[in-house]
């Protein structure tokens, strides 16, 4: 990680472009400050576990909570969460507006909203008044109202203590005398242990997921009420945000052969069409039939169509006011693209960072920030290949990925050592 930061430091010291990342990826004081705040808040929650009378349930809840906290602190230390004035002001303003207009819920003002590097567009609440928003979410939404509803929804999760209640519900379920009795009976069986255990296991997991879907509906309802008070007249954006989320995984652009020919051709090494001839998916057929789990029963969230249907019916939402985006939103959205690809680099997802950078470079072929990111990602890919750890940083082809992404994944691995070296040299000259 140290090397990454040194590289990035070098990277940004040498850039002076308007479309550059403003995020300081080496802000160790922010990490310390955040860790301290996180420990303060969670220790208070840990103390509250004393009120759980059943010792086994208390132990289970406590153990899971500690594990979650350890994972979270590790992320803080790794620099996954970042501080930046532009985003902080924008996100905090939404939270403040929700707090001011919803005085019935004073805890809203305690909300600490964290910005996270990630490869997935997402927002989530973890309890203790923490909400996490990922950078790719910011680049995917259409306006601040959509984001305001999403944040309202996450605040609702915190208000309703869903994180804690979820742990408690699950611990109570698996420690119920009935489940224990059934498990003991299964263990005693000579034959068919697997079938009986499997049925019971499914029952528990489906029950947990069903409960999750119920909690999501609660958060949609309360979240909407909070949002409506703060953003009166723009209620339909709540529905629009769910529609946006529904389409968030659709790839909006792709890399064509011409793009590769443009990006991977130098004086010494001309682009070779054979680099792209390695389709490893279309020769296979993949079985899509349900094998073990009922997919619908496994979902933690109901489908967006169901959620929008429920909201429209429950709250009689109709299309109301339209509003042009603010300058700050436009600025956030624009920067989020650059910071998203930087974030992918920082979290060592070099493959995706390079792919997204190349997609971006199509639109801004002279952008040196992007060319530099191409260079740094290629260097990291080369290092990983030498160490035989490339698969930790570059996805493997997968039938669930787009054709464009799979082609890219094959392409990178198709390059020989000498060819990769040549492209690294080429992009190093662009620094």
């Amino acid at each position, binding site marked *: 990680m140290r090397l990454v930061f040194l590289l990035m430091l070098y990277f940004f010291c040498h850039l002076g472009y308007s479309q550059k990342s403003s995020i300081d990826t080496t802000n160790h004081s922010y990490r310390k400050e955040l860790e301290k705040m996180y420990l303060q808040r969670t220790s208070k929650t840990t103390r509250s576990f004393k009120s759980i009378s059943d010792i086994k349930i208390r132990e*289970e809840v406590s*153990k*899971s909570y500690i*594990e979650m906290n350890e994972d979270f602190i590790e992320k803080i230390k790794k620099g996954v969460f970042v501080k930046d004035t532009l985003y902080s002001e924008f996100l905090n303003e939404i939270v403040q507006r929700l707090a001011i207009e919803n005085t019935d819920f004073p805890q809203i003002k305690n909300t600490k909203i964290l910005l996270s590097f990630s490869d997935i567009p997402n927002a989530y609440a973890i309890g203790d008044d923490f909400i996490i928003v990922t950078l790719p979410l910011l680049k995917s939404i259409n306006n601040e109202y959509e984001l305001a509803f999403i944040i309202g929804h996450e605040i609702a999760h915190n208000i309703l203590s869903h994180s804690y209640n979820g742990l408690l519900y*699950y*611990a109570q379920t*698996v*420690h119920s005398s009935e*489940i*224990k009795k059934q*498990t003991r009976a*299964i*263990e005693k069986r*000579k*034959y*068919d*242990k*697997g*079938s*009986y*255990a*499997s*049925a*019971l*296991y499914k029952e*528990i997991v489906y029950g947990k997921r069903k409960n999750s879907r119920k909690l999501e509906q609660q958060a949609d309802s309360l979240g909407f009420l909070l949002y409506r008070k703060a953003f009166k007249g723009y209620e339909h954006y709540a529905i629009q945000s769910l529609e946006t989320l529904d389409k968030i995984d659709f790839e909006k652009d792709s890399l064509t052969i011409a793009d590769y020919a443009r990006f991977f051709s130098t004086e010494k090494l001309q682009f070779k069409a054979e680099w792209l001839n390695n389709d*490893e998916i279309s020769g*296979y*057929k*993949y*079985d899509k*039939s349900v*094998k*073990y789990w009922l997919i619908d029963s496994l979902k933690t969230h109901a489908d967006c169509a169901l959620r929008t249907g429920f909201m429209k019916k429950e709250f009689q939402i109709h299309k109301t006011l339209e509003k042009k985006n603010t300058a700050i939103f436009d600025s956030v959205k624009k920067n989020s693209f650059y910071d998203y690809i930087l974030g992918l680099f920082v979290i060592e*997802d070099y*493959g995706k960072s390079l792919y997204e950078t190349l997609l971006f470079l199509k639109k801004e072929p002279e952008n040196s920030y992007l060319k530099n990111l191409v260079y740094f990602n290629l260097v990291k890919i080369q290092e990983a*290949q*030498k160490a*035989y*750890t*490339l*698969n*930790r*940083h*570059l*996805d*493997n*082809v*997968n*039938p669930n990925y787009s054709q464009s992404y799979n082609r890219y994944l094959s392409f990178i*691995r198709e390059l*020989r*050592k000498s060819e990769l070296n040549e492209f690294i040299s080429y992009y190093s000259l662009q620094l």
Partner: protein
Amino acid sequence: MKKYFTLLFLFFVSIAFSQVQKLGALSSGQFLDSAIIYEENGEDVWGYLLAYKIDKKSREVYELEYVVLDKNLNKLTSAKFLEGMFDTLLLKFKIELTFVKKIKNQLIIGINDKANNTELAARVYINHRFRTLNLDTFAFSKEFVLEDFKMIDRDYATGTNTTIDDFWNVQQLIKTKGNYLFGFATPAYNPKAVAYVSEQRHKDKITKSIKSFAVLDEKMNIVWKKEINAGDSKIFDEYSYFDSDTDVLLLQKYRHGTKDKEPRSIEIYNLHNGDLIGEMPFLDAKYLIFPDRAEFTKDNVAFYVQLYDNKKMLYEEVVGFSKVIFDKKTGKELNRDHFLWENFKPHLQITNKYGEYDKYGKILPQDFVLLENGNTLIVAEGYKSKRSSEILDLFMVELLPDMSIKYFKKIDKNKISLQNINAAGIELRQYGYFDFLYKQKLNNREEYVFFYANNEREGSKYERRKNPSWVLGIITFVDGEFNYDKLQLTKKASQIIPGKAKKGYVRLIEVGSDDVEMRLEKVNY
């Protein structure tokens, strides 16, 4: 991004609650076995099949699951079914995959029962049975066995027991490197007594009573069949599978009872129609010869054979090897060149004709690659046969078509001492004591990778065993040049186990204290 892969528990997400973990463990599968599925031509990996034991339904009936993965480890399909297994009080068996062969849109999955808790374990493979998977519809067939090349369905239900009568006459199949399977007919003389007493005294009678062998397609139809051992002559042939490619089938033949000078040969058959194309008798004008292995090119098959200059073939008296090239179409011998250990002389100070050099030991080829230009790549290893034999360095050699040396390099390795194992080089190779692992094509050009493993820890035997430092040696032959690289396998918190993967890749299973990560890594060339 990481493809975490737990070999023991396939299905269940990790959940912190112990009660659920217990249920998850009870209801999930126990890893049984895995097999690599090759493309029809045998050159590249097509995918993998993993077998799990899901449940025990009755004393001899289990619920199994097969999971089929593509060459990038993506799941293609899976299915569960009941499977019977032979079991006795004296011998404990387990189910294992015999082979998995892809032919057109079918996978043919062979399984057998293997005794695993006696000294005989390595030899008891019984109850050979099969299932096919249609790769278009993902339909698994019923299980079946073959008797005299006829399919007999097997059905299992809770409570089914398997007896010796159920499998005594079933045939075992061998996967060829072409689009076919190969098998010998059930011997007409097949006394069950050999299950309890030494097979040796019945051996000739059994061999003589095998009246045919055949090549089968993916539907178990006979493509061609050859009758052998007609009548009750005292002269009879014992065949065994030697090798194959997409065009030819090589069978080793031993003619019993003959007065011929040499009763052994390798017959070359057209794999598609059974025509006998040619034969390579184990004869040479100057040496006794014994085939080591065959390598194939588009037009030719090259036999790499051991050369002996005495009347008896004593393993320690090999004087070199020969490359005997046959035309695959005509079956005619095209060329025969010898390479004697003495030919190493410009590079090694060979002190006798059996390959001794200095006080070092000897060199034994581990594998060969025949290039289209007639050159041969050889990976060889040094060894010293003594009370506790030693495995020494690795040698990469490229020979020109006339068997003169074009390239020679010694790669230093840490010496391995084999406690109380005094054996000849060929025996050490048979038992897998050498460090060389396998070779593989890197791509569709004539570029190859050779892998070996070595414990580089210095110090006492105890120290080397207690704190090993295993490395994977990676030798690539690219653009006509050799390159050398190493990957540390023993790490502070994990151990990496390398394995075969698709062309140009190596499969690494990294076992840590908390998880098992399987990943395909591109060979760095």
